[in-house]
């Protein structure tokens, strides 16, 4: 408070009625013990924790009942002493109304603690300042602390900032949502704990300064914090910054912008710009964890709204049923009954009150219809632009709405829909009362699904290409072997002319040596591709989970790296293959794919397929099936293929004598060489066509590229044929 902090304004924002006074009239009360506590294993963002107790076990207050699973996870502690009644699926507070595994505890009423101590005592040090950051983070993790402002991201994970140097620690005491006063009351009554939490966080992050941002509608809280700063002699390191009241100033990104003028890069985390941001409630919980060893087993929850007669803040044990808390607050069910967990802007309406209070439950709002009218039917968008003026993320909500509605998701993405923080400011001001945020949620969900589907198609394509590559590799190997044999035979025959022998010999060697190399490359490629798939999955999971957002860039970086690697490998393989292919082009053997026998077989096979196609078409026509069109198309294509196969065979039989002559060592006339080239080219065209039709069938986005590739191959073929014609005439 000794420093002058230059405040910055964020764009947009709204001023909804605050409705905070209703619940600040009374001090925080301790909620009476309910009959049972229901503790979902997944109260934080990340992986659910794993139970370490079983039904029937007695537990003490503060005892670990579930261990974290994986890095992004948090343990769970018994909020009071009692017996584990069950470990079963119960409905949990989540917008989807889903059920998840919960530990149910029946309190014994004794509220008996398990032994716990401060970190100093545990480590046996005299001065808490000597404790290392690692030890502090470990304690925070052990105490199950997760962001208490709303998202519930495990705090220890948020504090692991990697190589990012942190210069500023921000404590979020803005509490900009209407109705909610949990942080306000906490700051008023437990300011010392918050400042103590800030000290610990400074110790961990080694930040130079700490800013506690509080909206100017909480003068009592600001005064209490300043007193606490003086009492703890922290007035030089920690500043309480009064910020103008404007929703959503308490959004992490907005608060950072207000206090520092910096913006968290899209898809990034605050640590990338040297900032760590924590909620004031989290800071107080950290102080408890470090100084007395108290895990996170309770929190402050505001119970408000005109449907409850006794509005105020409660110190609630986690797992307390919402219905219990409402009952002690004098809840009167209304006509259009609604209970919102969180505030009116971002909270979600509970499907039932038989749900527990969790680590992130900052408010239970039970409004009357008069207080918060349920949405009226929306009118058409008049493009008034009020939404854009209100958007704190500087998006164009109206455009996002049109794109989402028309399911033009690519355009929605291009208009940065994923930067929307779902604050609801746009819906709030929309004169046509369009539920804009609902549209964005829909669009985001659909885009994520689309991405997942694309991923699958991509994997299918990769598998397909890998198969083709494998087949080509096998072919190349065969040809190389054959080449080696042919070369040996040739050498034995002691070819009369040195030049052609040398010409055939050299590529044979390359082919022989390139084959194992190719295999090695292929193996590497397969490995890389497997890694790629895995990284993509991880990335997807991270993207789907807002709290994992911090990990996204890491995964993305890894992804690009792997992709680059695959690209280089693919290039190497292509080069190796070219070398391998150069060999067979000059030789002839029974294994030659262009030998007349093979070609004949090809022709016959094509003819067989044509017959089947005709039969199917007839059948479809008889049934009047709607596939007729498609089948007819297919038939035409097949006819062309048969014709090509026949021609190829004919060409080969004509070229045969010459080829035989070549095998006997006579130099090849240019004409024959050309013919062979034509055949090889035809083969390539076929292959390209096959790939294309495969891609088309699977609806891959490579269709276009493959189409151009096909036409290129066909052009080449034409050229060769023309050359052949010209040569024939000569």
């Amino acid at each position, binding site marked *: 408070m000794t420093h002058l902090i230059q405040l910055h304004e964020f764009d947009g924002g709204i001023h909804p009625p605050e409705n905070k006074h209703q619940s600040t009239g009374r001090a925080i009360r301790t909620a009476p013990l309910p009959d049972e506590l229901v503790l979902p294993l997944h109260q934080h963002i990340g992986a659910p924790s794993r139970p370490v107790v079983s039904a029937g076990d007695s537990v003490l207050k503060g005892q670990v009942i579930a261990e974290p699973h994986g890095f992004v996870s948090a343990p769970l502690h018994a909020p009071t002493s009692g017996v584990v009644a069950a470990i079963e699926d119960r409905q949990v507070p989540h917008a989807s109304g889903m059920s998840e595994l919960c530990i149910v505890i029946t309190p014994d009423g004794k509220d008996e603690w398990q032994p716990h101590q401060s970190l100093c005592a545990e480590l046996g040090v005299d001065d808490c300042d000597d404790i290392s950051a690692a030890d502090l983070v470990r304690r925070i993790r052990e105490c199950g602390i997760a962001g208490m402002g709303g998202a519930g991201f495990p705090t220890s994970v948020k504090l692991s900032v990697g190589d990012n140097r942190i210069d500023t620690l921000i404590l979020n005491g803005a509490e900009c949502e209407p109705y909610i006063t949990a942080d306000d009351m906490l700051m008023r009554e437990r300011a010392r704990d918050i400042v103590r939490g800030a000290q610990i966080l400074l110790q961990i992050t080694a930040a130079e300064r700490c800013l506690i941002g509080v909206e100017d509608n909480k003068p009592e809280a600001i005064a209490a914090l300043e007193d606490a700063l003086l009492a703890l002699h922290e007035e030089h390191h920690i500043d309480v910054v009064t910020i103008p009241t404007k929703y959503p100033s308490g959004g992490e990104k907005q608060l950072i912008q207000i206090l520092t003028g910096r913006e968290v890069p899209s898809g990034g985390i605050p640590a990338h710009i040297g900032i760590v941001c924590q909620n004031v409630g989290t800071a107080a919980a950290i102080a408890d964890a470090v100084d007395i060893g108290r895990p996170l087993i309770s929190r402050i929850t505001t119970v408000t709204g005109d449907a409850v007669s006794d509005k105020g803040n409660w110190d609630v044990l986690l797992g307390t049923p919402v219905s219990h808390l409402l009952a002690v607050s004098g809840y009167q069910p209304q006509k259009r009954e609604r209970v919102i967990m969180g505030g009116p802007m971002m909270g979600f309406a509970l499907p039932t009150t038989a749900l527990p209070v969790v680590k992130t439950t900052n408010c239970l709002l039970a409004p009357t219809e008069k207080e918060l009218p349920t949405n009226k039917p929306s009118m058409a968008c*008049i493009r008034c632009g009020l939404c854009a003026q209100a958007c704190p993320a*500087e998006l164009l909500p109206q455009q996002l709405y049109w794109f989402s509605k028309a399911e033009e998701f690519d355009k929605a993405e291009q208009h940065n829909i994923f930067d929307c923080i779902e604050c609801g400011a746009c819906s709030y001001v929309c004169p046509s009362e369009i*539920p804009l945020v609902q549209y964005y949620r829909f669009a985001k969900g659909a885009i994520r699904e689309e991405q997942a589907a694309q991923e699958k198609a991509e994997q299918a394509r990769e598998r397909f290409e890998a198969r083709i590559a494998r087949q080509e590799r096998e072919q190349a190997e065969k040809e190389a072997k054959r080449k080696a044999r042919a070369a040996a035979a040739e050498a034995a025959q002691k070819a009369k002319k040195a030049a052609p022998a040398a010409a055939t010999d050299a590529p044979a060697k390359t082919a022989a040596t390139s084959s194992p190399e190719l295999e090695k490359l292929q193996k590497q490629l397969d490995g890389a591709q497997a890694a790629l798939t895995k990284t993509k999955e991880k990335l997807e999971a991270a993207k789907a989970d807002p709290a994992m957002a911090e990990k996204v860039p890491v995964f993305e970086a890894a992804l690009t790296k792997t992709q680059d690697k695959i690209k280089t490998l693919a290039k190497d393989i292509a080069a190796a293959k070219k070398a391998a292919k150069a060999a067979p082009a000059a030789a002839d053997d029974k294994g030659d794919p262009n030998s007349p026998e093979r070609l004949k077989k090809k022709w016959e096979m094509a003819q067989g397929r044509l017959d089947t196609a005709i039969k199917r078409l007839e059948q479809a026509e008889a049934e009047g099936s709607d596939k007729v069109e498609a089948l007819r198309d297919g038939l035409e294509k097949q006819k062309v293929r048969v014709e090509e196969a026949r021609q190829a065979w004919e060409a080969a039989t004509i070229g045969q004598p010459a080829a035989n002559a070549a095998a006997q060592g006579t130099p090849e006339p240019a004409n024959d060489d050309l013919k062979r080239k034509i055949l090889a080219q035809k083969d390539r065209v076929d292959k390209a066509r096959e790939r294309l039709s495969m891609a088309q069938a699977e609806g891959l986005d490579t269709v276009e590229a493959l189409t151009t590739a096909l036409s290129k191959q066909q052009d080449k073929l034409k050229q060769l044929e023309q050359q052949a014609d010209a040569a024939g005439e000569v």
Partner: protein
Amino acid sequence: MALLTLSSPHAHGPNATSRIMLTVALATLPGLAVMTWFFGPGTLINVILAGLTAVVCEALVLKARKYPVGFFLKDNTALVTGVLLGLALPPLAPWWITVIATAFAIIFAKQIYGGMGNNPFNPAMIGYALVLVSFPVQMTTNWAVSFQMSGSEVAGLTDTLRAIFAGSADVADVYTGATPLDDYKHLISKETSDELLTRATFNGWLNGGWEWMNLAFLAGGVFLMLKRIITWHIPVSMLAALTLCSLVFGWDHDLYTPTWLHLFSGATMLGAFFIATDPVSASTTPKGKLIYGAGIGILLFVIRTWGAYPDAVAFAVLLMNFAAPFIDAYTQPRTYGHSKARRGLKTGK
């Protein structure tokens, strides 16, 4: 116990489309009053006639499209279209012009495109342009002269009604005349500016009442800005562009219409604050609005100066309507956390 589950946000602000539209309609009242004062009751009758026609047409189309008529009529958008059209048409225009223009505006320019919010062009201006092109004689000769012009007095109610509904030519002859913009444009080649300004058309403070009408619309526009119904971008950029153009190209008043006449005559202020700002067909991004407004200002000057029409708000606005979606796509604001703004509609990174 099943509770009502709705998606957030659960709170809604006081904004309502119907009220916004009503406020827009009310904000035209000063202008309407001034026009009635200077040019007689013709405009008032036009506004009522156009407003009624608009509401009736809207109701019929909604009914035909099987939409809840009451619910959508309440949004007051048809009313606004009618009112604006009534203000834009010549005060003594025959009734059928008003009806045709309004019906076309509502049925074709608005509802055919899918109704409110979906029309790419300003419906009122489409209706206006249609009758201007189809009935040039009635549209250009029926501008009532203001009582400030010497030798003429404003038409009374009976005469006005006769002119509008009975098409009495004698009334029209007595009470109509060229507008100041028209006069200046066509006579400046024959007279000097000083001579010209002694003509009856330019009697009064500046130009025979037109200045007061423009000031009244300016006042209504400022009211809308204060109410945060429109932003400053479009009017300011449009008027700035018009001013700049007329200062640069029209500095010689013996050749071109002077700046003050551009600003305070014709439909300039009505256009700047009420027509160009029609949200549905205008650009919506802050930067886009500036470009859009400036475009209208420039086109207005160009058509007024070198075009066939003495005033050109309708054409200038319609031409820029074409460009609005494109302008929007290329003037996206820089989103929080992005180093630069995105452009266009393509997804390419």
